[in-house]
């Protein structure tokens, strides 16, 4: 414990270096801008920022992306509450109480509650990341190849099962990602796989081009097909924040406690990210909250619960990312990509080999929470002005960022063709509602999964029961099966309820589903 506090204090000192401090501030501002703009998703924003980190060292790069991620969970609240436009899917529950409260003439109070919730959720997330990462890493030091395979499988199945969409589509997306990762020369045998005598495929498909193409260009094409219909908005006007009184906050402590726990847990479980956390927290409030009957009419509980939970997921996500090298969401997959691009492999050893970097990142999370709240309080007025930009203009620049980002990685025009191809794939995914995150995660984690599987098979002479007979891997495999079975159980329960519940109530329940 003493060691952790000491390291964290050093992390705060390292954070004062100009490169780290500038990265933090830029990350906060850009993350907030991205979240405010309805056309840009948080993950897309983090992806587009990635190329700017090539010339930076690893610590400021991760600080930049993490700050973007953190402030992105907060920035969208402004448009959701003031204009009824959720900047991110995770902001949708904020519409249900935040917008009515604003319509009742209390927008400053609504924004005050959001700020408080983001501050609390952010502090909880930073504390939980510091507290949980080291025990996680120590535990992970016992892992061998079978455990790693089981953990990666659990991570991938979590994204498939808990991502809140069709499981079939998520599985298809995951398989495509895993297949893309196999293209190129195989590490063990040196065999060409799916290269079809095309020289550029021998080097494999860069996960960066998959990410940037599918998330960035794909989204731009999808919006272009809809004719860029989002009208520019008047972002000025009367945006103010009024913080709630201590007595009012104290009254909401059960809501805050419940949502904090939900947020951290949703962060740790792969696949159940900020959006799921936000919906689950609101749903829990609707079931167990003291004023559940008033939810939806513009009460603070409906704002605090989703905002605390969504911000609290960030630290939870950072725990498996740093301790195991397993990202649980699209944004953390990009952050893992940034680590790998700088030649750093996150995992249990990182706490010994790169302790300075890890604790500077943790320290930056604390600073980012305070920074984003200050930004939200004082600077949101000019930031919201970005809503005045027409969609066609912002989309043109997003497309350009995609190309320059992909080109910067290897200075190769070939990668631009990959961007175009994966842009079209991303569009098709969007069009037919296939989730992109499983494909990206499959692409990044596919080589880890294959290597740990093949190593296990070689070490244990092809005995596949090793994944189930070793205590840790067996437990994780059981959790994987549970995660995959959960959506089916959930569906069966809904079928059962649909037969029993009156139609009006069923519609309300459906609204609350993540």
């Amino acid at each position: 414990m003493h060691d952790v506090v000491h390291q964290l204090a050093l992390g705060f000192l390292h954070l004062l270096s100009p490169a780290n401090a500038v990265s933090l501030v830029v990350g906060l501002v850009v993350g907030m801008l991205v979240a405010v703009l309805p056309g840009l998703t948080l993950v897309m924003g983090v992806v587009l920022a990635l190329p700017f980190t090539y010339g930076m060292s690893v610590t400021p790069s991760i600080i930049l992306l993490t700050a973007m991620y953190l402030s992105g969970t907060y920035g969208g609240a402004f448009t959701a509450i003031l204009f009824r436009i959720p900047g991110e899917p995770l902001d949708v529950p904020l519409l249900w109480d935040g917008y009515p409260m604003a319509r009742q003439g209390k927008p400053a109070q609504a924004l005050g509650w959001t700020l408080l919730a983001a501050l609390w959720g952010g502090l909880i997330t930073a504390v939980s990341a510091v507290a949980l990462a080291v025990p996680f890493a120590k535990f992970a030091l016992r892992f061998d190849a079978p455990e790693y395979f089981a953990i990666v499988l659990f991570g991938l199945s979590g994204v498939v099962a808990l991502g809140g969409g069709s499981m079939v589509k998520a599985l298809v997306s995951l398989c495509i990602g895993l297949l893309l990762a196999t293209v190129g020369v195989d590490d063990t045998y040196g065999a060409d796989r799916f290269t079809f005598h095309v020289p550029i495929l021998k080097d494999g498909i860069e996960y960066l081009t998959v990410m940037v193409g599918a998330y960035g260009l794909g989204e731009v094409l999808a919006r272009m097909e809809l004719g860029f219909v989002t009208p520019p908005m008047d972002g000025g006007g009367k945006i103010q924040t009024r913080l709630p009184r201590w007595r009012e906050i104290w009254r909401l402590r059960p809501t805050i406690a419940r949502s904090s726990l939900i947020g951290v847990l949703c962060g740790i479980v792969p696949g159940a990210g900020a959006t799921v956390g936000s919906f689950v927290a609101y749903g829990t409030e609707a079931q167990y909250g003291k004023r559940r009957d008033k939810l939806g009419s513009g009460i603070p509980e409906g704002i605090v619960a989703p905002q605390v939970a969504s911000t609290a997921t960030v630290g939870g996500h950072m725990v498996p990312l740093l301790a195991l090298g397993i990202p649980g969401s699209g944004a953390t997959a990009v952050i893992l990509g940034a680590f790998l691009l700088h030649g750093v492999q996150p995992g249990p050893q990182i706490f010994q080999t790169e302790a300075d970097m890890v604790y500077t990142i943790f320290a930056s999370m604390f600073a980012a929470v305070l920074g984003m709240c200050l930004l939200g309080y004082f600077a949101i007025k000019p930031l919201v002005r970005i809503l005045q930009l027409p969609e066609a203009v912002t989309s043109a620049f997003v497309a350009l960022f995609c190309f320059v980002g992909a080109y910067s990685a290897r200075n190769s025009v070939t990668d631009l063709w990959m961007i175009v191809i994966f842009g079209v794939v991303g569009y098709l995914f969007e069009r037919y509602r296939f989730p992109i995150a499983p494909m990206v995660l499959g692409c990044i984690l596919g080589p880890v999964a294959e290597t740990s599987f093949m190593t296990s098979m070689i070490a244990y002479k092809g005995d596949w029961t090793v994944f189930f007979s070793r205590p840790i891997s067996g437990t994780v495999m059981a959790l994987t099966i549970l995660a995959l079975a959960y959506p089916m159980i959930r569906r069966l329960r809904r079928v059962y309820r649909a037969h029993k519940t009156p139609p009006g109530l069923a519609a309300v329940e459906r609204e609350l589903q993540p």
Partner: protein
Amino acid sequence: MAGKLKGQLPYLALLLGAAYLYRAAGHFAYAARPGELGPDFWPKAVLALLMAVCAYEIVRRALFVHAPRVPDADSRPATQPAEGTRYPRLLAAGVGLTVLYVLGLDTAGFFLSTALYLALFMLVGRYRRYGVIAATSVLGSLTFVYVFMKIVYVSLPLGAGPFKQVSVWILAALGIR
């Protein structure tokens, strides 16, 4: 019936593609080691899973698609906007423009092709304030050139022939050597 087939088509295409790749995986050239799995095992396992999932979905859609749909998480939240009018021509123009941009980069160089791409993209995107289009596309391209070549040290394409000369002038004007 047509609607049902339309829903099945993506899965059918994926199933056929996966079957083709499964066959291709059987022809990987490598020196086999006795008692060990080859480089084809992992891709084949993934492809088998993909084919099984696609087959399941095709059968499910064929047999149960007419049954009353149980609302699941696949359906979008009610608060999300309903799907509006689609403009496939706009999309085709956007994709075509993007392909032309990548094609033209090596010849026209980064600055010229980017400025043109940004301007045409905004026009195709039905934005009609020509002054803003001209200003943002030229200034945006210059900013990109400056940031990436001067600060991030990325060597962006200069183009060929007379276009290269234009790029060199612009770099000189920006103080980039």
